[in-house]
């Protein structure tokens, strides 16, 4: 059962969509850095 959004119960080890967002965005940052290096002429 999914925990309530604002539940005060500890909900360790439950993956939330924000964590995926953090991983995706930071991977994009690193790809952007790679791109910046590549356009180095």
């Amino acid at each position, binding site marked *: 059962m999914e925990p309530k959004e604002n539940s*005060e119960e500890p909900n360790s080890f439950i993956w939330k969509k924000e964590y995926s*967002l*953090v991983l995706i965005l930071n991977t994009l940052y690193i790809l952007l*850095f790679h791109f*910046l*290096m590549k356009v*180095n002429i």
Partner: protein
Amino acid sequence: MATLDWVILVLTLLSIVVYGVWKTKGSKNVEDYVKGGKDTKWWTIGLSVMATQASAITFLSTPGQAFHDGMGFVQFYFGLPIAMIVICLVFIPIYHKLKVYTAYELLEKRFDLKTRTLTAILFLIQRGLAAGITIYAPSIILSAVLGWDLRTLNIIIGLLVIIYTVSGGTKAVSVTHKQQMFVIMTGMFFVFFFILGSLPSDISFSETLKLAGANGKLDILNFEFDTKNRYTFWSGITGGFFLMLSYFGTDQSQVQRYLSGKSIRESQLGLIFNGILKIPMQFFILLVGVMVFIFYQYNPSPLNFNPAATEAVLNSDYADDYKALQAGHEELQLEKKMAQSEFSSALKLKDFNAIEQAKIDVVAVNKTELAIRNTAKDIISKSDSAIETNDKDYVFIHFILNNLPMGLVGLLLAVILSAAMSSTASELNALGTITALDLFKRNSKEGFSQKYYVNVTKVFTLVWGIIAIIIACTAYLFDNLIQLVNIIGSIFYGNVLGVFLLAFFVKFVKGNAVFIGAIITQVIVFILFFVLIFPYESGQEKLGYLWLNAIGCGLVVAIAMLIEGFDRTLRKETVEA
């Protein structure tokens, strides 16, 4: 400094202090004072966590680092987002479940009092030293370039922080962090756009990036597996991960920020905010440093950015040698400007051969400049071996004072002092809390009122403020300042993190094994530091300091498990015999 700059500087700093005191006076109980009443929203937590980590050193040193070595330093933060997720998944739910006031309180619940006390003391040592350096670092630089008295500056920064931190506790720290972050980011954006606007009109932003790239400043990623190199993708993602996990997960100056969250959800979102914005923010600060580099391709720069070093050498027997070098450097400025212009013209014409030739010329002229700067450092060292020749920390402040227009100078000085205040406030808040709750309250008789413990925490916060000022007044500068703070952290963090990981994940290990394991680990880490890192020049170390985090963490986990296993086998054998 012009009157307008003084007005902006003084008004900005005073308004932060006054607002902090006015908004948060009258804490009734310990929860109010230590956890900010537990009603902080996620965006306040996120900004507060970022403001705590971003000290004045970040804004003085990081642009200088990019100016000299490019943007590779951003890799240091690659482990941070993963660390944020682990803390949200594991640490925050447990802290909230156990309703702790300090991170180390959890260790008593899981192990015993001596483990709690040991980790609290390790925290006080490293954070107390760091608090002194957090005040000292901007003071030494500002006093050198502005001629202000070092001790007076230390005392002013320390006192401003003490006023609102002692008065309002965690809530005062959080509310002032919001304003400080606003001042900091506004100032940095102004500088960025000022530089863009002051470059020759025929150069676009993308050409600016290409110029920076041609000079090696955009070499952001380094995938080499080299343990001696401080900043690589791998050291960032592993060593950086352990450092960030330890810093954000177990350092009270950070834990206290998100313990003030209204709910688990608010605390988690606060750290997610940090996980999403931290790398872009550091990238931006480094980019400002690269823009300063580009600015000095078209404008004259000093041979060495540290004015104290220049003054020392010009008053020594080596003055003539240095002046000759200065003359050579000035001649090179024109050559540099022409090489950059040819490069941007070639880019516009899209002539591949011309671009390649211009790029070779640009790199050659910058190599010549680097060689001249290194010779200048050698001469400075000969004239006075005690003086700091590494001028990374002086690049940005030199630019601020000599190249920014009136008004912006005051704003940027407010940025640096706001950053100094924001991290010092969190540190003093945490140091006072740990001393009052983990050491004093835990070891005193029950029966005192809430008000009594609030006052005790205030007194300890004040005492740590005074200690930090004393450390700042007696500290000595060595190497790059931002690295000094990180090195001190790395010596202790891995060990403390390992103790927390044992508490969370290794159920069979008990208090005695952890306590002995932590002491043995700390001794080994000290030996590694003094043998492989401390005796060597910056960049020549036998082991990059970030690895101390992973080593300390791994060692304490392994040793504690071995001791526990050995102890159990012994006891079993004794029972069977």
